């Protein structure tokens, strides 16, 4: 009996031999040998394999540090001013709209005298 990891159920499920001999996600082995020593001016190791990248560098690690600051601020306000502005606008429109709506419904429920 062969097994594979099902990404759907996140559990091991039965598989055929073909899955065992051609495992999902198997990548070609990258050589772990050290590159030959260069005695001339060392060149910078490129971190991107493409000539250019669409979105520039990966900002996720900085954002992770930023959002993990333990300042007690809830997640929806953690970025400070822009979050506050958006929150206040949303609240104002929603609560204001509800009050307007209740008035409109009250008026609409008044009988129209012929």
């Amino acid at each position, binding site marked *: 009996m062969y097994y594979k990891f099902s990404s759907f159920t996140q559990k091991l499920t039965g598989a055929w031999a073909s899955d065992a001999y051609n495992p*999902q996600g198997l990548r070609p082995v990258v050589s772990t040998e050290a590159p030959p020593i260069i005695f001339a001016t060392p060149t910078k190791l490129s971190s991107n394999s493409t000539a250019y990248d669409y979105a520039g560098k990966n*900002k996720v690690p900085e954002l*992770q540090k930023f959002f*993990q600051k333990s300042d007690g601020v809830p*997640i*929806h306000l953690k970025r400070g001013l822009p979050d506050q502005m958006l929150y206040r606008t949303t609240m104002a429109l929603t609560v204001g709209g509800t009050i307007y*709506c209740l008035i*409109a419904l009250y008026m609409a429920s008044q009988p129209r005298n012929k």
Partner: protein
Amino acid sequence: MTHQTHSYHMVNPSPWPLTGALSAFLMTSGLIMWFHFNSLILLALSLLTNTLTMYQWWRDIVRESTFQGHHTPTVQKGLRYGMILFILSEALFFMGFFWAFYHSSLAPTPELGGSWPPTGIRPLNPLEVPLLNTSVLLASGVSITWAHHSLMEGNRKHTLQALLITIMLGLYFTLLQASEYYEASFTISDGIYGSTFFVATGFHGLHVIIGSTFLIVCFMRQLTFHFTSNHHFGFEAAAWYWHFVDVVWLFLYISIYWWGS
């Protein structure tokens, strides 16, 4: 500072459930105001507040998961259950409209001329644009699978390309369907044929737009390095939803466009 001894996520207090519920109230009342009093202000306000709520709620989820790391395998399992149950509820939603279609079309009344399509209705040719639409959605199912495998293999460029192709195909479907709606010789008010046709295909089209939006969000997140090769549930949820949309179309095509013509 105390630390939790379980792997669940205790969420910060959030205002979005309240604003979401209130925006739903505004939406239903707004529809009444539009239908009965010819006023669009409340409906417009409700759509705005609904969009603001969705944007901020999901933005917070991205912050909690990608930036704060709260989505442990346990949490992810719960999200998987949730998405599956949601999609199941949507399937039942569509089943209602298919029930209505078959109820009317299997035993057409004398008022319709005793036939389906009813007398006087010229249905769309299923072998023209509807068939193209079918191939477009099937192809998008292939491209999203390619995107997923590229993501799991850590191939950033291919993931972005395949996702983009999927989104383009989704938008192409929407444009094609919009032009079909414009060109059709019948409208929603043309009896039960028009009602079943436009309500079923209309809700499907809305779901294509929702699915495309979800995919665009995934594209932006992939661009900004949010997904890793073994943790990308947002993408998987979008892919499940997209496949669901595709399957609903196949049922629509076979039932309404093909059998019903």
